[in-house]
């Protein structure tokens, strides 16, 4: 139970909005003794920008290399732009291996897996928070306990299980085993606990049963939480590497992006400009999600402390 205590404490400690919208008191209560602090804060800001630049340089290097001619990938000193900007690298990367197929496979697996995850999580999260039933606490503790189990311990038995099902080399094997995460139930439960009980009562007075209350009152309210869960789940599926590496032998048919990239790297390892083009492609969906859904994502990480690890 102690892990639950920590989670709920963490959730209470950081009100999600405070980190995003913070009033800036700059210049209001400045004491005269701090006249040098303006200079210091400018220096600090410049250094911070340099740190950020150094941090992001591997990604810049990736994009730069992906657009260079093959002969210019390794130059001393390193250059940002080659003698020509070769967009063709991208289409060539696509023609060496079926990257279009990998993208579609990855999207399919991630979207279906995420939908299953959301559906079962919102139902169980509701059951663990708003419905009273025998064994509820025992089952919830069991759910939390599964979060302690490292995925690597499950790989071998899951592989044997997939062999038994005849699912080796299949989309089911990529999707189903990891669609049931306790994290989803936990996130939804934490959300439903914050919904006032009066809403249930009002719905019941209006004659709505459990199912109607759930679909017409609770589910619409849970949308922001489900968005957080969807982002976590999608990213986890999209980036998953070890399980696909084990369960998929026929990469050209069932490969997802990380698997395809690894194989491409093995085959075309010396053609760095093409490998980097493929890397850029592999990063686009999740980076776009991060930029568009940053608030949801950050709120989810701050309230659960675990998303997507």
């Amino acid at each position, binding site marked *: 139970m102690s892990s639950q205590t920590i989670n709920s404490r963490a959730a209470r400690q950081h009100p999600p909005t405070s980190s995003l919208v913070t009033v800036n008191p700059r210049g209001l209560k400045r004491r005269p003794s701090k006249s040098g602090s303006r200079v210091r804060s400018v220096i600090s800001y410049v250094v911070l920008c340099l740190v950020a630049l150094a941090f992001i340089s591997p990604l810049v290097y990736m994009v730069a290399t992906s657009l260079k001619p093959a002969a210019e990938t390794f130059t001393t000193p*390193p250059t940002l732009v080659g003698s020509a900007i070769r967009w063709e690298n991208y289409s060539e990367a696509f023609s060496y291996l079926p990257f279009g197929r990998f993208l579609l496979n990855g999207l399919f697996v991630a979207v279906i897996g995420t939908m299953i995850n959301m559906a079962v999580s919102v139902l169980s999260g509701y059951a663990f928070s708003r419905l*009273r039933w025998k064994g509820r606490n025992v089952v919830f503790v069991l*759910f939390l306990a599964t979060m302690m189990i490292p995925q690597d*311990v499950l790989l071998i038995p899951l592989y044997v299980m997939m062999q038994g099902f005849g699912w080796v080399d299949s989309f089911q094997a990529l999707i189903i085993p990891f669609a049931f995460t306790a994290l989803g139930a936990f996130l939804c439960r934490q959300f439903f606990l914050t919904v006032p009980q009066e809403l249930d009562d009002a719905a019941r007075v209006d004659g709505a049963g459990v199912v109607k209350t759930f679909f017409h009152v609770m589910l619409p309210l849970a949308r922001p939480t489900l968005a957080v869960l969807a982002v976590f789940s999608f*990213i986890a599926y999209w980036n998953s590497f070890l399980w696909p590496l084990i369960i998929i032998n026929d990469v050209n048919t069932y490969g997802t992006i990380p698997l395809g990239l690894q194989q491409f790297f093995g085959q075309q390892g010396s053609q760095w400009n093409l490998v980097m083009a493929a*890397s850029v492609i592999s990063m686009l969906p999740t*980076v776009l999600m991060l*930029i568009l859904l940053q608030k949801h994502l950050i709120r989810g990480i701050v309230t659960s402390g675990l998303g997507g*690890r």
Partner: protein
Amino acid sequence: MVTLPAAQARAARPSKRSARVDPNAVHARRSWWGLGFASPHAIGLALFTIVPIVASLVISLNNWPMLGSPTFVGFDNYSQLLADPIFRTVILNTTLFVILYVPLNLIVSMGLAAWLSPKIKHRQIFRVLFFIPTVTPIVANAVIWRMIYQPDGLIDATMQSTIGVSAPNFLADENWAMLAIVAMSVWQGFGYNMLIFSAALDSVPESQLEAAELDGAGAWTSFWKIKFPMISPSIFFAAMMTLITAFQVFAQPFILTKGGPGSSTTTLVQFIYNQGFVFQQLGVASAAAWVLFIIILAITAVQFLGQKKWVHYE
């Protein structure tokens, strides 16, 4: 949500009828509803987590080739592992990774979280920027760093053109390979902890910091005497999660070095992968996985016992 409309249709009739019955009956009915709502998830978790964890123990007690029938061998796989010098190396490598990675990750993420105070302009942009490598495929991140570490790669080329000295061949040099993997892993992984610490620091009440300032406390003192104790639950939680995930490191060394040179960067999970899917000895692989599980459980237990000394809950 493909399955939901069917469930709704099935459930619609009884719910309408029972809306006006006495409270006790409502309670009994709710009991079944709760079970019904939780069961799809519970069955999935049971089938794909709880059954496998038990099965994993069973497999580890058998000689279990990938193709062909298993035979019970008791604890032979475990004693074989303990006698295997490669397994010992692998445990040491993984421990070295954890010892280097976890503190570095926590220091970098805490440092940046403290730096990115609400006073910093465009703070949200910095946060998103530092978070990018945590959402990109780890395989892609590792491939980029493979090129950076390469002779004539970004580091080597920069050193040659500025100070005229070649960089070491990081990934082929036993002294450097693990450090290179740790550096890449910190780059790609500290974003989570940075966000957690950043939010925790935001929640420290301004009034306490002002009071400390009036008492003459500088930034350093007020960090260690006020902020650190107040956010210690977050630090504890982040440290634990980072430690657990660090023991499971796989993709970075797998892509960067394939575990080499020699077996100097082979980690425990890569060992499990090799035993299971290269040598096809699922029994040995499962035993190694249980060793990993036991290490993680033991460390988690020790951390929980140790937390009383430095973690302050309110």
